[in-house]
Structure formats: C-alpha cells, structure tokens
C-alpha cells in the first residue's frame, strides 16, 4: 500500500506557524507522509519551522491575495491542489479562519467533515476519528469517501514535537480569478492581550454567571494577575456579552490544560467541562453545593465568589 499523504492546513502569526498547525504535523506524521499547506506570504524561517516539525513537503502559495481577501482564494487554491495531488487526508486546526476555509472547501468538494476531533486514525482504508459529543459521550466517527477526508482537530489533542527535518518546498501557482475573491480584508488590528495567552497559561481563573455582572470580571483579573495567570469565561458569560468570544473555554471556544484552573461561579455545564477537564488541578468556587463543577474539582469551595475571590487576592498579595 502506498504511503498515505496527510496535509496540514497552516497559518502564521507574526511570521511563525501557529502552534495548532505544529500539533497537527505530529498527528500527520503518525498517519503517513506529512505535508503542510501554507497559503500566505512567508519567510524561510516559517518554512524551516514546518520542516523541523515533520513536514516532508510544504506547499507554499506566496501571493499576498491570500491575506488581502478572506477564504475564497484559499479555497480555490486548495481545491485545485487537491485535484492535482489527490491527498488522502486534510487536517485543519480549530481556529476561526481554519473553520471558514474548511467549511467552504467541503462545500466545494461536496465532501463531509468531521469537526472537533481529538484523535484521528485509519483502520484499513477507513478513517476513524474520536469526537467528544455533548460532553457526556465520546463518539467514534467515520467519513464516507471518496478521499480526501476533511477533519478539524481540537487544540492540544496532539503534542508539538520538533523532529529536526527539512521540508521540500513546492510552490503553489494557482491562477486565481479576482472576481472569485469577494470578501476584502479591509483592516486587521492585532489585539494586545494582557497577561499570558489562555492556551499557554499555567494558571487560569475563569468566570461564569455566578459573578452576577460584567464589572465583577475585574476581580478575576486581579486574582489572575496575582497568580501570573490568564482569565477565561464560560459560554453563558460570553453569550451575555460580558467578555469577548476569545475568552470562551469549552466545547466551543478554547481547550485548555493548565496546571491550575480556578472556576469561579461556573456551574459546570458539559459544554464547559469539555474545554477544561484536562486541567491538572481544579479549584471550584460556587454558591450552589450541587453544582456539577464540584464533581471534577480537587478543591470545592461552597460560598460567594464575590467575597472569596477578592479576599484570596489580598491574602496572596500580602505574602
């Protein structure tokens, strides 16, 4: 049987490949020959980093059009590349842009998609993926062919493993029809996030409805600062518009695995637990002694977050 060819759709931040793409190269290497598809202007360092993490090939489209227009040039180039090269499997990370490109590409190819996978494997020619389902179940899911199979993988499902290889660069020279690029990126303004990034933070202080109102999030920020951690939120709080979507931890939103997770006024809906139950230690503070979050807490505190959190911050500051 020929070696399976597994492609990883890749995006850059500040010129470097994003961590989720590097994680997926680990998955891809385990399944066959790993290639990265990078459709964005990029320097040699980005290409070298992809090679060093296991990409045998980097399909590189260097055209600025990929960042000037959203989604459509990516999909056009990917569809042409897939037709020419016939890969077996494409892995996408769970970022905003990856989701947009993947869904539209699936529509173009008439293909099905597995989203939210936490592992991917083959059993003979059959693709199997593990997908957490409603938080209370784990499903094993397959896709009816033909290949290529399209799978979106959750962050941190695979480790980043530098293996020290070097990639062969194959330029992607798809002729793009400007009329098919209809969504102009007018402006991109980097947001300076305070404190450590949620996905990399060792300590996360997360808030839910139990905080009562948006202004009380300040209390969590102060505690997080004291512990050198980051602030996250449950879906309920994000839906209520208290904090931006980027704070959301859960089945939707981010998957985090910090050393310590402090859940403040979070009831522990399965959607939330799906994104944080890989945390090494969990402290839960909640008024309701029956809250589901206590089932997965190492230390459960029944009480008022608005009293306990500021007192804890003060106590830690005084040390």
């Amino acid at each position, binding site marked *: 049987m020929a070696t399976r060819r597994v492609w990883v759709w890749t995006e850059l931040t500040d010129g470097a490949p994003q961590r989720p793409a590097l994680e997926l190269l680990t998955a891809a290497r385990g399944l066959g020959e790993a290639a990265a598809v990078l459709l964005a202007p990029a320097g040699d360092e980005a290409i070298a980093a992809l090679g060093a993490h296991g990409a045998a090939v980097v399909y590189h489209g260097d055209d600025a059009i990929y960042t000037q227009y*959203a989604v*459509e040039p990516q999909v056009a180039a990917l569809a042409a590349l897939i037709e020419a090269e016939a890969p077996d499997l494409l892995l996408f990370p769970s*970022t*905003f842009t990856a*989701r947009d490109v*993947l*869904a*539209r590409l*699936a*529509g*173009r190819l008439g*293909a*099905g*998609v*597995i*989203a*939210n996978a936490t592992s991917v494997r083959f059993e003979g020619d059959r693709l199997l993926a593990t997908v957490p389902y*409603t*938080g*209370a*179940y784990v*499903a*094993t899911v*397959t896709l*009816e062919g033909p290949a290529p199979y399209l799978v979106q993988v959750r962050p941190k499902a695979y480790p980043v493993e530098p293996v020290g290889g070097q990639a062969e660069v194959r330029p992607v020279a798809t002729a793009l029809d400007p009329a098919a690029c*209809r*969504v*102009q*990126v*007018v*402006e*991109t303004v980097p*947001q300076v*996030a305070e404190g450590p990034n949620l996905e990399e933070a060792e300590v996360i202080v997360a808030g839910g409805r139990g905080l009562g109102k948006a202004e009380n999030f300040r209390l969590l920020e102060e505690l997080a600062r004291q*512990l050198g951690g980051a602030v996250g939120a449950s879906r309920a709080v994000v*839906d*209520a*518009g208290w904090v931006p*979507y*980027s704070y959301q931890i859960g089945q*939707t939103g981010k998957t985090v695995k910090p050393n*310590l997770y402090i859940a403040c006024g979070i009831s522990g809906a*399965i959607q939330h637990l799906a994104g944080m*139950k890989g945390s090494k*230690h969990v*402290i839960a503070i909640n008024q309701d002694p029956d809250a589901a979050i*206590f089932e*997965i807490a*190492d*230390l*459960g*505190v*029944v*009480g*008022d977050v608005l*009293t*306990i959190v500021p007192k*804890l911050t003060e*106590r*830690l500051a005084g040390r």
Partner: protein
Amino acid sequence: MKICVTVKQVPDPNLPMQVDPATHRLVRNPDQSILDPADEYGVETALRLVEEHGGEVVVVSMGPPSAADALRRAMAMGADRAILITDEALAGSDARATARALAAVIRGEQPDLVICAIEATDAYTGMVPGMLAELLDLPQLTFARQVAVEGQTVTVHRDIEGATQVLRAQLPALLTVTASIAEPRYPSFKGVMAAKRKPIDERDLASLGLEAGAVGAAGAAERVVALEEVREEKQGQMVTDDGTGSSVEAIVAFLERIQVV
C-alpha cells in the same frame, strides 16, 4: 432588503443531553426543545437591518414538525414569515446534508443576506454556514460582532485570535453572527399573538427537488460507528465558606501543596 435567517430547534442546553444508543442520535423531545439561543442573535440582527433599510425577514429551519415552535418564537420576535423543511427522510442529516436542504430553499428565496449563528448549540460543528455559502455561491463574512449595510456593501467587524478585523463584500452575502452583535429582544405579547397568524410554509423533499439519497442519514458522509458514555468524578476536598471568606486559608493551603505559591 430580504434577509433569510437560518434557525434550529435544539434540546434545551440547560438540560442534560441524551443520546439514543441505537441510532446514536440526540434525543429531541419537543417539550424540552427551544429555539437555539445562538439563533436569536441572527434574528435580532436581521430585524434591526430591516428596521433600518426596509424589507422582509424570512426564518428558515429544517427539523421535525415540532420545530414550528422555534419558528413561531422567531416570528414572535418580529420575523415576517417562516419556511420549515420537514420530511422523515431528513432524519440523521449531517452538516453536508443540512446545508444541501437549506440551500435548496434559500436559493428559491433570492435573499440579499443570509444570516446564520456561528454554530448550533447541539452538535457545535459550525460547518453548515460555510458549506451553505459555497452552495449558494455567496461571499461569507463570519464571526461578526458588528454589521453595517450601506447601499450594496456589507461591512463586518469581527474578533479572531489575537486581532480584530474588518471585512467588506457586496450583497448578496452570508453572515455568521456572534453573541456580542446585539441583545435579542424578548417577544412582546403583541408579537406572540401576531406570530400565530404568520405563515409557516412547510416543504418536503419532493417540493425542493432533492433526492432522498442526498440528505438525511442516507446522504450523510459523517457516520457514528460507536458511542461511549464518559463520566469522570474526582473525590475532591470540599469546604464551605462561612460568608466572610473563611475558606481562603484552605485555598491558600491547596495552592501551597500544588506549589503554585
């Protein structure tokens, strides 16, 4: 301006979800199902755009006949009419089959805008909007937290990882909207009464010109081959605060034990 908003009836997300072990499908009990809260933002956005520019809001759903309740709720908020794609052959549809059915209806409506939630509050795949945009050959502007239409131009502000972005396209277009776009209105009594008289147009597969093999379980590419229930419980330590912050010492002791402080 004509706006189609896709909506879905989902099991109440505040209740535990159940899966039928035989079919691997979510148990959808009509008495415990509601208009997906994530869809209310799309309905609200459409209503505001039509209040500003004039036009019509059409809500479109696929589901069992009981999904009419979710459409009534959207019409009680102010949507003008509803289309329900309902057919037994649609059961078991995955994202691809759902997008095909929705596209068949929306194509016939020729809207200026299609508005979707970023994902449904049951399966959370978020794949239908992008597939739908492709099937309808519309540009997609996603994760919008702010939207403005001027003439034939739609402009969206959105947050992505580490950045905010402004996207622009010409109508017709498809949008997905986040929870921060607008506070959904609560249906008034008058709205609820009016919704009872608004039409729900029921469509089956034959009327959409869709083959049974293209949708439902038969047309799904994604198949669940096994399902396992997972429950994790830790035997953690519990303390009860006396109302003055007395539990802080126990928390500090725990932090010391795990060497965070």
